[in-house]
C-alpha cells in the first residue's frame, strides 16, 4: 500500500496532463455537440444521422479510435503541411472529443423531446424569436439533461484518456501500461486508482452543477463551475512548458525499451541535458514519432524497421541489412542511426525444454512436422507481422491452434502448458530463467534484430549529444541485456527500469567494449 502511495505522489505531472487532455476533449466535444443537438432538435432527419454517427463512433474500441487518428492525421498533412502533429496531444484530443459526443448529443436531443409541447407553443405564442426561445426556454429547461450528458461524457473521457499513452500522450495511463508490461502491479494500481479518483471527483463536481441547474440555484451552478475551472487551470499551470529544450526519449511497450530509454536518459542527464520519457508507444508509432521530431531518440531493431518501414521481405543478411537501413534512414528523413548496441532481440520460437525433448524437436524443421498437433502463442502483434508470415511460409508451419497473449503472459502460458510453442525474444531474461529451448532457425527465415539507437533529424545536429551516447554503441551484450530485462520482469526482488538501467550502466563501465 505504501508503495502505491509513493508512486501516486509522483504522478502529479501525469495527472495534470491527464486533466488537461480530458478537459480539452470534453470542451471540444461540448462545443461540437451542442450546436449539432440544436440543429438535430429542429430536424428529425438530422437527429437520426447525427445520433447514428455518434453511436457508430461509440462502437469503435477507444484504443482503436486513438490509433486510427495517426493515419488520418498523417494523410491530412497533405492539406495542413508537415507541421501537423500526428502523435500526442492532437490525436488524443480529437479521438476523445469524438467519444464524448454521444452522451451529450443524446441527452440534449432527449431533453428537447421531453419538453412539454405546450411550453414550446407558448414560447412561440408570446412572440419569442427562435433565438429567444432557445435562450429563454429551451436552454434552461434542457440544462439539467445536458449537464447529465456532460457528466457521463466526462467520466468516459477520463477513463479513455488513459489509453492515449499508446499514441505518445502522457497521461495516467503511463503507469498502467508500464506496470502491465513489467508486471509491476503497484504501478498499475496507482494509475487505476488515480484515474478512478479523478473520474469520481469530476462526476461529483458536475453532478452538483447538474443539481444546481435542476433546482435553479445559480450560486450552486456558478460556484462549482468556478471550482472545476480552477482545477483545470491548476493543471494547466503545472503543465506550462518549463523546459523547451528537454530531450524526449520514446520507448515501446516492453521492459527492454524502458530500460534502454533510462540508460540513454541517465547518460544525457549526466551530460547536463534535461530528459523526458514517452513510454508505452505502439511499435508502428515510434518510428513516425522520431522522424517527425515528436520524440528525439528511440531504440529500434533492424528486422523491425526492415519489414515495417522499408517494406522489404527479403533477407540480405545481417551486415547488408544494417548498412542499407542506415542509408535509407539518412536519405528518406535525415534520421541518424547512431549505431548498434551490440545485442540482438530477435524473434525466435521457443519451447519448454522438457516438452521439446519429449517431442524430439530441436530445429524449426522438426517443429514443422509436429505443428498440426501443437498450439502456438504469440504476442498481440506477432501473427500479423511480415516476419511471421515469412517464417510460416519458409517452413510450411501449420498449427492446430493459434493464441494471442500479451508478451508478459506469453511465458506464463508456455510454462502453464496453454501453449506448446511461443514467439520468444532472444534478449528476454525469461528464456534462460524459464529454461526454454530456442529452436534453431536452420533456413535463416527470421531476419536479424540488432538493437539500434535512432536520433531524430533535428537532434542529430547536436554533436555533443551524439558524442555523449556514442559509448553505448557495441557496449551491451545479449547476456547483460537478458539479465537487466529479467531484473525488471521477475516477480521477486523486482527492479524498476531506472534501477536496472543503472546496474547495466555500471556493467558497461566495468567491461569496456573490445
Amino acid at each position: 500500500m505504501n508503495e502505491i502511495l509513493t508512486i501516486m505522489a509522483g504522478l502529479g505531472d501525469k495527472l495534470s496532463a491527464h486533466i488537461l487532455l480530458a478537459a480539452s476533449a470534453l470542451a471540444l466535444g461540448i462545443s461540437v455537440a451542442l450546436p449539432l443537438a440544436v440543429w438535430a432538435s429542429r430536424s428529425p432527419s438530422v437527429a437520426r444521422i447525427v445520433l447514428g454517427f455518434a453511436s457508430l463512433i461509440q462502437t469503435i474500441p477507444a484504443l482503436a479510435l486513438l490509433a486510427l487518428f495517426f493515419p488520418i492525421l498523417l494523410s491530412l498533412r497533405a492539406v495542413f503541411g508537415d507541421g501537423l502533429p500526428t502523435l500526442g496531444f492532437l490525436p488524443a484530443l480529437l479521438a476523445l472529443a469524438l467519444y464524448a459526443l454521444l452522451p451529450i448529443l443524446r441527452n440534449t436531443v432527449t431533453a428537447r423531446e421531453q419538453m412539454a409541447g405546450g411550453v414550446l407553443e407558448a414560447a412561440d405564442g408570446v412572440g419569442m424569436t427562435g433565438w429567444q426561445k432557445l435562450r429563454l426556454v429551451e436552454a434552461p429547461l434542457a440544462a439539467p439533461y445536458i449537464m447529465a450528458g456532460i457528466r457521463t461524457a466526462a467520466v468516459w473521457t477520463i477513463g479513455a484518456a488513459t489509453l492515449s499513452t499508446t499514441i505518445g500522450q502522457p497521461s495516467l495511463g503511463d503507469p498502467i501500461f508500464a506496470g502491465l508490461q513489467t508486471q509491476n502491479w503497484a504501478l498499475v494500481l496507482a494509475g487505476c486508482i488515480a484515474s478512478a479518483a479523478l473520474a469520481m471527483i469530476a462526476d461529483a463536481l458536475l453532478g452538483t452543477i447538474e443539481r444546481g441547474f435542476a433546482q435553479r440555484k445559480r450560486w450552486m451552478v456558478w460556484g462549482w463551475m468556478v471550482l472545476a475551472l480552477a482545477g483545470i487551470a491548476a493543471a494547466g499551470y503545472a503543465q506550462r512548458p518549463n523546459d523547451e529544450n528537454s530531450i524526449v526519449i520514446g520507448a515501446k511497450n516492453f521492459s527492454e525499451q524502458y530500460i534502454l530509454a533510462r540508460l540513454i536518459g541517465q547518460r544525457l542527464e549526466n551530460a547536463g541535458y534535461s530528459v523526458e520519457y514517452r513510454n508505452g508507444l505502439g511499435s508502428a508509432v515510434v518510428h513516425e514519432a522520431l522522424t517527425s521530431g515528436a520524440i528525439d531518440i528511440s531504440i529500434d531493431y533492424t528486422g523491425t524497421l526492415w519489414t515495417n518501414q522499408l517494406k522489404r521481405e527479403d533477407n540480405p543478411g545481417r551486415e547488408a541489412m544494417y548498412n542499407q537501413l542506415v542509408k535509407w534512414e539518412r536519405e528518406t528523413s535525415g534520421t541518424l542511426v547512431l549505431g548498434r548496441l551490440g545485442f540482438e532481440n530477435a524473434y525466435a520460437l521457443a519451447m519448454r525444454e522438457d516438452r521439446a525433448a519429449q517431442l524430439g524437436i530441436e530445429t524449426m524443421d522438426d517443429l514443422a512436422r509436429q505443428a498440426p498437433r501443437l498450439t502456438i502463442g504469440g504476442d498481440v502483434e506477432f501473427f500479423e507481422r511480415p516476419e511471421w508470415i515469412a517464417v510460416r511460409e519458409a517452413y510450411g508451419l501449420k498449427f492446430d491452434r493459434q493464441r494471442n497473449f500479451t508478451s508478459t503472459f506469453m511465458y506464463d502460458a508456455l510454462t502453464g502448458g496453454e501453449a506448446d510453442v511461443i514467439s520468444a525474444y532472444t534478449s528476454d531474461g525469461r528464456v534462460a530463467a524459464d529454461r526454454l529451448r530456442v529452436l534453431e532457425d536452420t533456413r535463416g527465415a527470421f531476419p536479424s534484430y540488432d538493437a539500434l539507437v535512432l536520433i531524430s533529424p533535428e537532434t542529430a545536429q547536436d554533436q555533443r549529444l551524439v558524442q555523449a551516447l556514442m559509448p553505448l554503441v557495441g557496449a551491451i551484450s545479449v547476456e547483460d541485456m537478458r539479465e537487466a530485462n529479467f531484473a525488471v520482469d521477475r516477480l521477486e526482488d523486482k527492479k524498476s527500469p531506472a534501477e536496472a538501467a543503472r546496474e547495466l550502466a555500471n556493467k558497461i563501465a566495468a567491461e569496456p567494449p573490445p
Partner: protein
Amino acid sequence: MDQDPAPLLRFENVSKSFAGTVAVSATNCVITQDSFVALVGASGSGKSTLLKMVNRLGDPDGGRVIFEGSDVRDAPPAALRRRMGYVFQGVGLFPHMTVAENIGIGPRLAGVKATTSRISELLELVELEPEYAQRMPHELSGGQRQRIGVARALAGDPHLLLMDEPFGALDPVTRDGLGKSVRALHGRLGLTTIMVTHDMAEALLLADRVLVMDSGQIVADETPQALLAGKGGDIAQALVAVPREQARALAKLAPDIGAAR
C-alpha cells in the same frame, strides 16, 4: 347591426392542407372590433387551424389574413404575436419561471420590464392575489395556471385575444368560473376575442357570434339567439341539440326532485 363596426380581422379566401388532407378550404370571414366570436366544430373541422393563421402558428397555403389593415405576413411573426394575446388548452407556463416572470414575458421580450404593480394589476384581472407573483407554476392548480395563462396573454395590452380550447382541461366548476371571468374582461378591456371550442353550450353562453365549422368550411354564422331559434342549418342544429336536450332533461328532472322532497 345598425351601423358597420370597424373590421379588425379579415380572412380572405384562406385555405390550408396537411399532407394532402384539407383542413381549411377557401374560407372568408370578417371579425369586427369588440366582438366575442366562438369557433365551434367537431375535432378536425379546421377551427384551430383557422385560428392559428391569425398569429401565424400556421400560415395558409392560399389566401390572406388581414389584421388591423395589413397582411399578417408583412411583419415578423414574433412582432405580430406580441400584439395579440394567445391562450390555449396546454397553457404552457414556463416551468422555470415564477408566475411574475411568466406574466411579464411579453413586455420583457419587447424590452420593457413589467413592474410589480403591473403584475399585481394583471393578477387582479384574473382574480388572483398579488402573493401569487413569486410562486412557481408547479405550485398552482389547473384553474390557477390557466388564469395565469390569461394574465400573460393580456400583459401586452393586446387588441385581439385568441383562445384555443382555453378551458378544455378544466373541471366544470373551474371552467364555468374562468369562462365568466374572461367574458367580463372582454367587456372591461374592450377586447376582440376569438375562442375555439368544441362545446356548443360554452359558445352559446359566452359568445355574441358563433361560427360553426365543418370539413374546413364555415357552415353557419349566427348569433346564439338565432341558433337557439333553429337557424344555421343541420350541422349547427345538431350541435345545438346536445345542450338543448340536456337542458330539457334537467328541467324534467327538477319537478321530480321537488316531488321527492
